[in-house]
C-alpha cells in the first residue's frame, strides 16, 4: 500500500495534468460543436505544436512557454488553408467526407513528421521541467503547475470569448443552427474557419506544454485525441467549464489507474471511460444540441 504522500501527489498530479488535457479537449470540443466535425487530426496538431516548441527553442534559444502566443498564432495560421482548401469545399457533403479528409491529413502529417524529424522520442528540455514542487508530503513537478495555470487561464479566456463577445455570439449561433444563423447575417463560414483555427491553436499550445512536461514522438497524437474525446463526452459538448472539469476527472482517474494497476493502464482508463460514458451517460452529446 503506497503511503499518503505518494497517493496525494499522484492525485494532485492527475488533476493538474487533467487541466492541460482540458485545454486540448476544448479545442476538439469547439470544432465538434460548431462544425459537427470530429477532428481526427487533433492529436497530430498537438504533436505539431510540440515540434514547433522544440524547434523554436533550438533555433532562437528563447523559452517556448514565453513565446506561446506566437506559437499559437503560427499553428492557427496553418489551420486556415486547411479549412479553406480541404474542409470548406466539403461542407455540403455531410460530416463523413470532412471526417475522412482530416483522417487522411492526420496520417499524412504523422508520416511527414517521421520523415522530417525521425520516429525518435523527443522532449523540449527545460531545466525547470524536472524541478519538484513540494508542499509537506505532497510533491508534484513544477511544470505541471505551470502548465495547469496556463491551461486554466486560456480556458477561462476562451469561455469569456464565447460567452461575452460578438464573435462568441456568432459562434454560439452557428453551433445551434447554422442555417438560421446565416439567415440572420452571421458569416457562418468565417466563424467556422476561425473556430477551426482556435481549436487547432488549443491543440498546438497543449502540445508545447506536453512537449515540455513529457516525451513525444510522431505517433503520440492518437492517445491525446482519444483522451480528448473522452473528456468531451464527460464534460458535455459546448460546456467550457465542463470540459475543464472533465479533463481533471480524467486526469484523476488516470493517475489512480496508473497507481493501482501500473503505468501502462493510464491510457486504457481514458478509452474505457469513453466507451463506458457512451453506454451510460450519452447526455454529454445531447446537451450539445441545445447549447
Amino acid at each position, binding site marked *: 500500500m503506497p503511503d499518503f504522500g505518494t497517493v496525494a501527489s499522484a492525485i494532485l498530479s492527475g488533476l493538474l495534468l487533467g487541466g492541460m488535457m482540458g485545454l486540448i479537449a476544448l479545442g476538439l470540443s469547439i470544432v465538434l460543436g460548431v462544425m*459537427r*466535425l*470530429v477532428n*481526427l487530426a487533433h492529436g497530430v496538431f498537438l504533436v505539431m505544436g510540440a515540434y514547433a516548441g522544440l524547434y523554436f527553442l533550438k533555433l532562437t534559444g528563447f523559452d517556448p512557454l514565453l513565446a506561446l502566443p506566437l506559437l499559437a498564432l503560427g499553428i492557427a495560421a496553418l489551420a486556415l488553408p486547411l479549412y479553406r482548401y*480541404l474542409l470548406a*469545399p*466539403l461542407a455540403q*457533403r455531410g*460530416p*463523413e*467526407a470532412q*471526417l*475522412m*479528409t482530416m*483522417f*487522411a*491529413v492526420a*496520417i*499524412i502529417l*504523422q*508520416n*511527414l513528421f*517521421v*520523415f522530417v524529424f525521425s520516429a525518435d522520442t523527443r522532449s523540449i528540455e527545460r531545466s525547470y521541467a524536472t524541478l519538484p514542487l513540494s508542499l509537506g508530503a505532497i510533491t508534484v513537478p513544477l511544470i505541471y503547475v505551470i502548465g495547469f495555470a496556463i491551461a486554466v487561464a486560456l480556458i477561462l479566456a476562451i469561455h469569456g470569448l464565447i460567452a461575452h463577445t460578438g464573435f462568441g455570439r456568432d459562434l454560439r449561433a452557428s453551433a445551434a443552427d447554422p442555417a438560421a444563423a446565416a439567415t440572420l447575417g452571421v458569416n457562418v463560414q468565417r466563424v467556422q474557419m476561425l473556430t477551426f483555427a482556435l481549436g487547432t491553436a488549443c491543440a498546438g499550445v497543449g502540445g508545447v506544454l506536453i512537449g515540455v512536461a513529457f516525451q513525444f514522438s510522431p505517433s503520440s497524437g*492518437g*492517445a491525446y485525441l*482519444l483522451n480528448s*474525446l*473522452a473528456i468531451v463526452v464527460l464534460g458535455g459538448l459546448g460546456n467550457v467549464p465542463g470540459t475543464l472539469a472533465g479533463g481533471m476527472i480524467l486526469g484523476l482517474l488516470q493517475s489512480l489507474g496508473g497507481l493501482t494497476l*501500473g503505468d*501502462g*493502464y493510464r*491510457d*486504457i482508463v481514458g*478509452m*474505457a471511460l*469513453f*466507451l*463506458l460514458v*457512451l*453506454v451510460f451517460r*450519452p447526455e454529454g*452529446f*445531447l446537451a450539445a444540441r441545445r447549447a
Partner: protein
Amino acid sequence: MRLHRLSGDMGILAGAFVLLWFAPSFASDYALQISFRVMIYLTLAESWNLLTGSVGLVSLGTASFVGLGSYVAFGLANHFGAPIPVILVVCALAGAVLAALVSPALFRLRGVYFTVGTLALAALLQLLMVNLPTFGGASGIFLKHDPPPLASLYHDALSVALVASLAMAICARTRISVIIRAVRDDEDAAAQMGVRPYRVKLAAFALASALIAMAGAVQAINLGAIEPYGAFGLQWTIDALSMVIIGGIGWRLGPLAGVLFVVMLGEMLANYPEAHIAITGVILIVLIRFAPGGIVGMFARLFTRSTRLSSP
C-alpha cells in the same frame, strides 16, 4: 429478377473461385504471396464497404477485429491444436460477439460517434494486449507449430474471401439491399416503414466483424508471430478505408478495384513505408473531394457519358 441476378453473381463467384483455387500449381511464391494479400484485403474491403458504403456507418475499428481474429486464432492453435476450419468458425463467432457487445456503446448516438467509438475500441484493445502478460504483452505470441504451407493458407484466404463475396452478393441482390439502403438514407423513415434500424445496423456490424476476424486469423497464421502493435495497428484501418474510397465507396466492384490498386501501390513503394502512407493520404483527400465514387465511379461516369454522346 433480383434472385436471377443473385444466381448470376453466384455463378461468377464460383467460376472465379475454381479458377483461383488452382493458382498454386502454376504461380510463383511471390505471386502467391501477393494473391494471398489480395484475398485478405478483399475481405477487409468488402466488410468496410458493407458498413460504410451500404449502411452508412464509417468505421475506424477494422484493426480491432483483425487483432481479435489474430489472438483468438493463436490461442486456439497453441492451446488446443485446433485445425484451421475450426479456428475460422470460432474467430467469426468471436468477431460477431465482440461487435454485439460493444454495439450498445457505439450505436447509442448516430453518425460520427460510431466512428470515434470504433477508433477508441481498437486503441483500448491494443493497450490491453500490451499490458496483459497472459496474451504475451508487448512482445506478443509465437505460433508453436510450423504454419501450414503458403499454398494451403492461400486456399484458406481464398475461401474467406469467397464467403465475404457471397455475403455481399446476398446483401446486394436480395430484399436485404432495400432494407439496408432504407436505414442508410433515413433511419426514422425506415423505422416508420417497419424496419428496425438498430437490428439492421447490428447485423451488418456483426457480419463485417466476423469476416474481418476470419481474415485476421488467416493472415496472423501466415505471419507465424503476432504482437499488439501490428495486430491491432492503425494500418489495417487505413488500408480498409483507403481501398474502398479509392476503389469506389458503395460500388459492388469498388473493393476489388481498390484492393488491386492499393496492393500495386504497396509493391511499388515497398521500400518507402512512410511515403506509401503519406501518398495514400493525398490520394484519399483528392478522391474524396473530386471523385467520391473512386475508380469505379469514374469509369461508370465515363461510360454513361460516352453512351449518352453516341446515342442520337
